[in-house]
């Protein structure tokens, strides 16, 4: 449902790079902001790419922990008032505030990531992902790679969004081996969002799962994932970690990267880039833009050669999902 799955590297808009567009883009991050090596950064990457290609003006604002809706509201309002258009809100927490601000600025196009509750509002573009689909594929890969028939899921914070990852992963694993044991653990409970920032907890939990027999662990835990990788690396050959959001094989520490079998790619960068591009092109995307396996907004990475053995099965499943033969539920 979305225009163009422009993955990194290739870009058809390369020649417009020098031409300065007069579009000004405002982007409001979720808590954690730039440099979280995760979700927010991914949005930042999309923004940076658009900026360098289209020469646009950008303004990035950050959220602070424990803020109220009115603070979020004000942030969006400041951007809209400052003449930024489009304005992108990163994270579902902005939904309520955006609902109010969008009404105040009917001429500004807003984008919101991970929320589609405002899809009926004409000047809001919902940028959402079928995380369960990608998680299904890595779940299948995990089940294939596991020798013990025992895999783990480490969620950062117990929210419905992360539960989508869990749901997909479980179904995927069970589609390959219906007797597989899937251990599930969330590091913290909201509103304690420390679970995305706690590599030590990630490591302890992963270690516990390994001790209880798991040999493949999927880390949907933001910054805590590095702890999971450490635990897997410590367990040695034959154990695998699965990354999330971006291709973590490419960004992780050299000591652990070889243990990252694949990553579930959630192309927040693509969605941000596409949305800005549509605005620059003058045909701004509206309504609900769902990114999924079919448009590569959701995918799994293949940069680690080790995943080669399981690609056939994964691609087969991918086709079935796209065609609708397999329905992946979004709740565990």
């Amino acid at each position, binding site marked *: 449902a979305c225009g163009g799955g422009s993955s990194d590297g290739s870009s058809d808009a390369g020649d417009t790079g020098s031409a300065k567009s007069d579009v000004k883009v405002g982007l409001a991050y979720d808590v954690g902001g730039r440099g979280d090596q995760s979700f927010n950064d991914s949005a930042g990457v999309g923004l940076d790419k658009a900026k360098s290609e289209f020469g646009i003006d950008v303004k990035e604002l950050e959220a602070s922990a424990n803020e109220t809706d009115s603070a979020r509201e004000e942030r969006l309002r400041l951007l809209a008032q400052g003449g930024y258009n489009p304005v992108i809100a990163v994270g579902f927490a902005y939904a309520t505030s955006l609902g109010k601000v969008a009404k105040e600025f009917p001429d500004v196009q807003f984008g919101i990531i991970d929320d589609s509750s405002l899809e009926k509002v004409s000047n809001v573009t919902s940028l959402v992902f079928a995380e369960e689909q990608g998680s299904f594929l890595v779940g299948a890969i995990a089940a294939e790679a596991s020798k013990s028939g025992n895999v783990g899921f480490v969620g950062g914070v117990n929210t419905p969004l992360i539960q989508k990852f869990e749901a997909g992963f479980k179904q995927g694993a069970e589609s390959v081996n219906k007797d597989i044991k899937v251990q599930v653990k969330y590091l913290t*409970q909201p509103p*304690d*969002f420390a679970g995305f*920032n706690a590599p*030590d907890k990630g490591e*302890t*939990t992963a270690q516990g799962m390994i001790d*209880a027999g798991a040999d493949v662990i999927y880390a949907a835990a933001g910054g805590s994932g*590095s702890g999971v990788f450490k635990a897997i690396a410590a367990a040695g050959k034959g154990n695998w970690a699965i990354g999330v959001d971006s291709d973590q094989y490419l960004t992780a520490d050299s000591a652990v990267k070889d243990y990252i079998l694949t990553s579930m790619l959630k192309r927040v960068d693509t969605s941000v880039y596409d949305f800005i591009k549509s605005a620059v092109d003058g045909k701004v995307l509206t309504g609900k833009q769902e990114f999924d396996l079919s448009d590569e907004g959701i995918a799994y990475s293949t940069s680690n050669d080790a995943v080669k053995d399981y690609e056939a099965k994964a691609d087969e499943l991918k086709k079935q999902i796209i065609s609708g033969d397999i329905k992946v539920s979004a709740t565990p």
Partner: protein
Amino acid sequence: MSTTLETTTPPAAPAPERATRLSQPLRLALYALVALAVLSLIRVLTDANDLTSAGTVSAALTLAVPIGLAGLGGLWSERAGVVNIGLEGMMILGTFGAGWIGWQHGPWAGLLTAVLFGLIGGLVHAVATVTFGVDHVVSGVAINILGLGVTQYLAGELLADSPGGGETQSPPISALPRPSVPGLDGVLEPLEKHHWFLISDIAGILRGLLTNVSILTVLAVLLVIASYVILWQTPFGLRLRSVGEDPHAAESLGVKVRLYKYIAVAVSGGLAGLAGGFLAIVASGIYREGQTGGRGYIGLAAMIFGNWRPGGLMMGAGLFGYTDAMQLRNAVAVHALLLVVFALLLVVTALNLYRRKWVTAAVGLVFAVLSLVWYLNSDELPGPITTMTPYVTTLLVLALSAQRLRMPKADGLVYRPEGK
């Protein structure tokens, strides 16, 4: 009863001033053994082998160290009569210091910076409370706000452009060595694997404590012991404690009260900073905003739990680390903890019956039955409930033991020298 693990760790026993010598350590050892036997029995019965596995013990150790170090910081400060609610802020400063210098100049330099940053926080607290006579809680709360504000501000300025880092986190810091007692693993691992009664438990615990332990964990344990020796066995320590018990008496004997308070609070800050450094360097390998997650407060709680004594503090931190490790690692084992709670309550009820405290006994019995029923009627605890484990356990142990805690007498009182 889950405190058993800690009583087997190195010696810094509580050593009360009037120890009924010889019998005290013996009695403690006996208690520990009985407790371990109960735990082992429950493990065998429930098949929850993680209750005493090396992995659990090792994770518990890592989780306990930052809390223990923060608590030790609190202990130094409060022994000199200065309440330090600002541990959290000093710890935050430590994590940042470790991350900022650590990724550029290696873990040892990072650690040193962490201590230094914490120490600076401690000095601010000392200036406010000792020199200016500010209420200790006010100053501590201010330092918590400042610690957070300063690190976030500095991270924005100093880490934003680092490779692989950002405004909220540092690039990875290289790891510190993790030595083992040589040859032990080969002997203990097979023993543990058999899941024999008691023997496997002991093997598991020893393996967790003695193999693959971070050098900084070793340092932390040494620091606890050193603190005991310094505070209780040296003239310096006596003076420092006297300042927290009765500064006017100390002053009247020529003790430089303010100097000792300054030293104590500075050391306190340094230890909290070290706790932060441990979190960043050993536990996580990076600095990340919000990394401390309230551990400064937990450290304070562990110190109070431990009756302002190093041995007790170790038990408190250990209990917390153990239950936290348990809930993070293994839901089955947490479920088995319900049985441990049942056993614990049963013992307490029996004691209360013996002491003819009928009401307390009845309350205990009701809760004992409830936990048993809950255990029998469930296979696993719901996820959110397991995350409560460390907090509930701490409360439960405190409520049951009803120990007479005794804080330093002049703790928290603003000291003004005679004639001011």
